[in-house]
């Protein structure tokens, strides 16, 4: 018998899990690490994926609660920041909400799903670098804690009224945490991409890879071409922060730190979160109706195109005059083109439904409902993004930016719930409770939809650029709608987290994973 790469990975995983004894050996139980030690030493990617998923769902609850408070403040149109005790504190939470949903919730959630699911989809025993996957989780978690603590200590990504000495130290810590989180996500992405490229089953070409694994390969590539640019920004910001008084590159306005990083949560870069959503949606619809696409290569091309349009490192406008870039043809073309692959994928999903069994049970399956809602929200986000780049509408510096963001985030969370339902045996050990799944899908879809709509309509009503929606005193109804949307998203995240925890019927460590 020849020792193939998957077999090597398996043997490495086995040895890393705490002993050379083979499965079933009586020595294995004796050598197995304790329950507490297991999350620190495991080499089973499905366990690492589970850790990512559970932690990011808990952080989703915390982040969405921040969102509820922010939107509650927004209903106090005269001074939204009073709820937080000052403008700077409001700004800190406003930026934390955005960075957290991207780097601490949606991306790690989908990465966790990938770590658990991709090896089994491509026929590998484990991911390519199981210890790197574990290092990715822990460095991500430590980075997340550093971010949250430093923001609460007065740090964050800039200050509206300039940076003081004490804030400067806390901000340096926030930058460190952000760098750690990005590096950890990149490490996880490299692990997943290498698994798909190098460890897939003999005879399986890249075109034969299942849609979710392919979407994660595309997403990993998009992350690898986008997130390092943010790291470069962090290096410049850190050097500038250490050499106070800040040079801020001759731009007088504050907060200069956030202005160097905001491109990450705006289109097109914000779409890098959403690439795996496409793969999850196609697989979930197919599994729900029991059908396979007649044109899998078309799905491959569509996902690849969306990934290409999500690469966004080039779109930062801090170092140039913003109008030069954002009124440019490339930016407009990227914004408009993002709708095309999503429309094409909707067609692909519709074809699956037509080819499959369209019984009432199947059509009302949580996976079908969740995938449908995720695709609709993503489509709405892309549509809002397309409107945003149309110059005569003048929506660039308005809340249309956050309509895109909220659509993508809600779609990512919904895709996470669908994945928990679809691959619960790998991700959760036990099945995700039906009530929790349906409840989370309904709440996230409703909340996400309300947020997208309220942000988009607010953008049309705004008389002047108003990214923080501070002057929308004429749209009280929309502000209330945004508040209700935030509450629903928070409730949906809580339902998903509770459902996931309750599905852990056996201890996290038992059995060593179901991959």
């Amino acid at each position, binding site marked *: 018998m*020849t020792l193939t*790469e998957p077999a090597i*990975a398996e043997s490495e995983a086995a040895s890393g899990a705490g002993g050379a004894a083979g499965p079933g050996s009586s020595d294995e139980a004796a050598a197995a690490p304790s329950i507490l030690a297991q999350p620190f030493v495991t080499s089973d990617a499905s366990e690492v994926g589970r850790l990512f998923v559970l932690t990011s769902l808990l952080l989703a609850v915390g982040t969405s609660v921040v969102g509820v408070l922010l939107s509650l403040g927004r209903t106090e149109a005269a001074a939204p920041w009073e709820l937080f005790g000052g403008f700077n504190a409001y700004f800190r939470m406003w930026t934390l909400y955005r960075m957290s949903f991207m780097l601490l919730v949606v991306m790690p959630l989908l990465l966790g799903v990938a770590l658990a699911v991709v090896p089994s989809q491509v026929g590998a025993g484990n991911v390519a670098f199981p210890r790197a996957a574990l290092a990715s989780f822990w460095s991500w978690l430590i980075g997340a804690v550093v971010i949250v603590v430093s923001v609460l200590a007065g740090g964050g990504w800039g200050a509206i009224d300039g940076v003081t000495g004490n804030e400067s130290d806390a901000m340096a810590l926030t930058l460190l945490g952000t760098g750690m989180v990005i590096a950890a996500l990149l490490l996880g992405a490299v692990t997943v991409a*290498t698994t798909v490229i190098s460890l897939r089953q003999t005879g399986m070409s890249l075109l034969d890879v299942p849609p979710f694994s392919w979407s994660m390969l595309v997403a990993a590539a998009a992350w690898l071409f986008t997130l390092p640019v943010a790291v470069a920004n962090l*290096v*410049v910001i850190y050097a500038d922060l*250490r050499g106070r008084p800040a040079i801020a*590159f001759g731009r007088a306005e504050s907060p200069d730190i956030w202005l160097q990083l905001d491109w990450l949560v705006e289109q097109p870069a914000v779409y890098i979160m959403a690439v795996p959503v496409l793969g999850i949606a196609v697989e979930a619809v197919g599994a729900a109706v029991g059908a396979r696409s007649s044109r899998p290569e078309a799905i491959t091309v569509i996902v690849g195109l969306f990934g290409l349009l999500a690469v966004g490192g080039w779109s930062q406008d801090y170092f140039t005059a913003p109008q030069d870039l954002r009124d440019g043809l490339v930016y407009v073309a990227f914004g408009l083109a993002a709708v095309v692959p999503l429309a094409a994928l909707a067609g692909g999903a519709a074809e699956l439904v037509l080819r499959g069994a369209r019984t009432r049970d199947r059509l009302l399956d949580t996976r079908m409902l969740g995938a449908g809602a995720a695709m609709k929200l993503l489509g709405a986000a892309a549509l809002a993004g397309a409107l945003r780049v149309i110059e005569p509408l003048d929506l660039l510096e308005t809340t249309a930016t956050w309509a895109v963001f909220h659509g993508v985030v809600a779609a990512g969370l919904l895709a996470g719930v669908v994945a928990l339902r679809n691959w619960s045996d790998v991700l959760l050990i036990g099945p995700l409770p039906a009530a929790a799944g349906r409840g989370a899908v309904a709440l996230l879809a409703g909340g996400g939809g309300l947020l997208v709509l309220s942000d988009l309509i607010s953008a049309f009503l705004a008389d002047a650029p108003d990214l923080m929606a501070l002057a929308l005193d004429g749209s009280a109804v929309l502000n209330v709608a945004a508040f209700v949307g935030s509450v629903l998203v928070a409730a949906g995240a809580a339902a998903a987290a509770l459902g996931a925890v309750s599905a852990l019927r056996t201890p996290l460590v038992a059995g060593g994973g179901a991959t």
Partner: protein
Amino acid sequence: MRTTALPAAEATRPRTVVVGALLATGAVFTAFAALVAVYVQQRQLARATGQEWFPEGSVELGPAGMMMMTLVLSMVTVQWAVQAARDEDRPHGFIALGVTLMFGAAVINQFWFVYTDTAFAIDGGRAELLFYAVTGSFIAMLIGGMAMLAVTTIRSLMGPFGRDLAHGVQAAGAYWHMCVLCYFLVWYVVFVTK
């Protein structure tokens, strides 16, 4: 005519360690290229508005050229190490890795001289800030490459060369070549065109 049924050939797959290292190397290069892009853009902006970027004569080309030549030599020695690892030639592999590490240390030493020579203050202006950001990041990348090479060196001393080790040296070599490419950017953008 008789035919002999031969076992199927083992599937040829890209080498896992090398593939992972290439992906990570690509990410590091993207970050560095973004940093250099900021540098170039800011310098262009300064010149467009008639501002001086570096004071005349403050940045010398001589030490930078010496570093470029050192790193070009290190590309040869690191490839020597890769070939030695493939051939399971321990003495050559160890010598090649040692020489490469020495070249890396020489470049860091040269950078120390450049910093002392220029005596820029980090908060002196955009040019000084970005000078330290770009060169400092390069030094950090180089130290990372040296660490990778050092690990493979130690592994080569502790056991026999094998497929994994050869791939590890190959991965470290790919990263090293990328570092030299990055320095070429630094050399041309920061020191040559100033």
